[in-house]
């Protein structure tokens, strides 16, 4: 190939790639404009802070899901896992209150226990997928049922409630703020930044993308495929637990209907953000934008009274489809 006409080509391809990546951002901007038009209070700091803080639950989970999906795996158990971990944390904290008081010491033990349980649960999924050689869809579908049953069992069919005084100590973790920014937003942002750096700039992240792109090639390139896969599931479990750590102070209870369908929301956010379901490419900031978009839809529908609130999920579904279509058309023109 003669190298004479290379100058023109790179610029147009660059433009096309960028447009595909900007899709979710454009959608976000359009929604923000719509919200601002509909209601004066939409752009208030209080409302925006509410939205981003609320997104932190699904958001932190979805960041974990981004890693798993990039390796071409999937984890359907995250919602039930979150409910189970929240329940365990409540039980543990409640049982420690008589001996340790209702201050931060009991709560910290509960938080630590939750993080450990989450990581272990994720690792269990991972072991079944790697050593057990079972499809991730099947493993995590089974885990979904198991965790859901466990939380129902722990709550005895009812609800587990966090001790009232402990709840008073703990709730500032969700409602408090640092330098004016709500704590959940800070934690969400930290997780997102660390995750983006890990995925883009570390060997672990590179290996994850390689495994998702072509597992055989990864194997032939001396990558320890099973070990990397296992770590992504354990990481997902850890992040699910982190979301539970933020959930308990806000809601103070866990039962069989806690965190239902969170897995679908998390996966939807990941897809809207530009990560491909078949693996090989992950975009953390896209996931963050995706989560905020999903949360925004509910918020915007609450801003006005002429569209029935029953249609919330219809709009969510439509946005997901449109987002994916926009990404597809970019990719095929390339």
């Amino acid at each position: 190939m003669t190298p004479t006409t290379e100058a023109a080509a790179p610029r147009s391809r660059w433009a096309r790639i960028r447009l595909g990546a900007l899709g979710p951002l454009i959608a976000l901007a359009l929604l923000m404009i719509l919200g601002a038009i509909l209601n004066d209070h939409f752009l208030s700091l209080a409302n925006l802070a509410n939205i981003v803080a609320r997104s932190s639950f699904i958001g932190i989970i979805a960041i974990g899901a981004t890693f798993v999906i990039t390796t071409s795996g999937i984890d359907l158990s995250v919602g039930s896992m979150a409910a189970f971990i929240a329940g365990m944390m409540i039980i543990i904290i409640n049982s420690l209150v008589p001996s340790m008081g209702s201050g931060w010491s009991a709560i910290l033990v509960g938080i630590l226990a939750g993080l450990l349980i989450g990581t272990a649960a994720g690792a269990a999924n991972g072991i079944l997928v790697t050593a057990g050689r079972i499809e991730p869809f099947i493993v995590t579908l089974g885990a979904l049922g198991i965790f859901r049953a466990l939380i129902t069992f722990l709550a005895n069919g009812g609800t587990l409630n966090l001790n009232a005084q402990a709840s008073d100590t703990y709730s500032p973790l969700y409602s408090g703020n640092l330098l004016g920014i709500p704590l959940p937003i800070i934690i969400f942002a930290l997780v997102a930044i660390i995750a983006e750096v890990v995925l883009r700039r570390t060997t672990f992240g590179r290996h994850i993308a390689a495994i998702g792109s072509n597992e055989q090639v990864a194997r032939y390139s001396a990558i320890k495929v099973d070990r990397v896969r296992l770590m992504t599931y354990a990481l997902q479990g850890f992040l699910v637990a982190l979301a539970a750590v933020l959930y308990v102070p806000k809601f103070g209870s866990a039962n069989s209907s806690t965190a239902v369908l969170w897995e679908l929301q998390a996966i939807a956010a990941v897809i809207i953000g530009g990560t491909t379901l078949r693996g090989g490419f992950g975009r953390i900031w896209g996931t963050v934008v995706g989560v905020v978009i999903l949360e925004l839809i509910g918020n915007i529908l609450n801003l006005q009274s002429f569209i029935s609130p029953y249609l919330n999920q219809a709009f969510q579904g439509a946005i997901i489809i449109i987002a994916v279509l926009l990404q597809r058309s970019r990719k095929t023109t390339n």
Partner: protein
Amino acid sequence: MSETIGTAVPPILAANRISKSFGDIPVLFSIDFDVRPGEVHAIIGENGAGKSTLMKILSGFEQPTSGTIVYDGKQVTLPPNGEAEAMGIVLIHQELNLAEHLKVVDSIFLGREIERFGFMDSRLMREQAQALLDTLHVNVDPAARIDTLSVADKQMVEIAKAISREARVLIMDEPTAVLSLAETQTLFEQIHRLTARGVAIVFISHKLDEVMRIANRVTVLRDGQLIATVDAAVLTPDSAAQMMVGRELSNLYPPKHEPDVDAPRVLSVRHLGAQGIEDISFELRKGEILGFAGLIGSGRTAVAEAIVGLTHRTGGEIDVNGHPAHFANVAQSVAGGLAYMTKDRKGKGLLVNMGLRPNLTLLTLQRHLRGPFIDTASETRALDRAVRRFDIRARDATVRVGQLSGGNQQKLMLGKTMESEPGIIIMDEPTRGIDVGTKQQIYHIVAALAAEGKSIILISSELQEVIGLSHRVIVMRHGRIVGELEGDQITEEQIVRRQMGIEGKAAA
């Protein structure tokens, strides 16, 4: 069999002054090409010369930017996406276009199933498929699943599919790239049957000797331009290669430098066993190129994969540089100084959806770390070095590996393998599906590596290549070593005899 078809017969498919540009990049410059009924017209040229693009235009998968297509005497615009098949122009891709899970009969009738009262008439389709396969002398069970067939048989099914669609022009893209000698022979017999029925065949190949055997006319492309269209009878391998590359190709194979007699043994394999192979014993000296010849399926790849830890060893010992070694996985063999270049560059060697840089450094990321982070500047420097050392040509820095030509992909994979600075390199079919010019480059690189003191095991099904490069040749058959040849003994005849099992067993 290079008779010329009488020039009085008008061509069935002709391309007149065809040019094609992708955006701003011109790829074909005013090409004239035609093929007559019953003729085999071969197209040769380096990777990137424009052969694939011309093929796609002739079969409707791409539209020319300017110029016309004339089919059956009438100017036409060919429909896209393979719909030209309905008109009788069929393209058989290099990566065969078969659905792996379907049965042979289903594949043949895909999209044109025979129905009776709304249901599929399986019996009739099976009978017709069987009759078709019999006419073509193809020994394949119509009820067999595609993924159980050998590559050669899959190709036959593709041809049967084309015939059942009453193809009048058959365009075949490198059909012999993965075929053994015997299978190639069967394919050529098939082609003769087709041409006898008046089918026109356009045949793209890198194997010049085959082209000369089967083709009536040969067209040479270079850099998107038509260099010449000649009768195959007047063509010689040298003149063909010269037209393709544009320069003298007197030394396709570099001179051999025999390693020192007392060069140390870098690799010693004793009684190695694994699935498909038994009792493999051989030695490799420093600076040596050891060729592994054998028919496809003789177990050579299995030997390589067992040595580097990709598959499980059932027995035997391996010494590297005098020390016993047991590699349980690829990471260990890389750390031990070995490297294996797979023959499946797109499926197992390179991530086709990623760029050059991440592919090059995938084995050696730990060399480009700053703290816990990957230093992309360091990676880019490594890529520049590899591009210069191996002459890897890409349109620009952001292309995906899947968009590179086969030769450049192979060179990139070589670069990736060499990044880990191995002392022992096992190359499996290093020039499969690659044009002559790049082949020459790779041969010279291999010889240079050996001269530097690297030791190379060269697995190849191209006998000329094995003979031209190797210092010693080991021949395998049915999973065992059946011969070892050195010096003057390395000839085509000696190798073929052992491959076929004609010669008595030579001392291992």
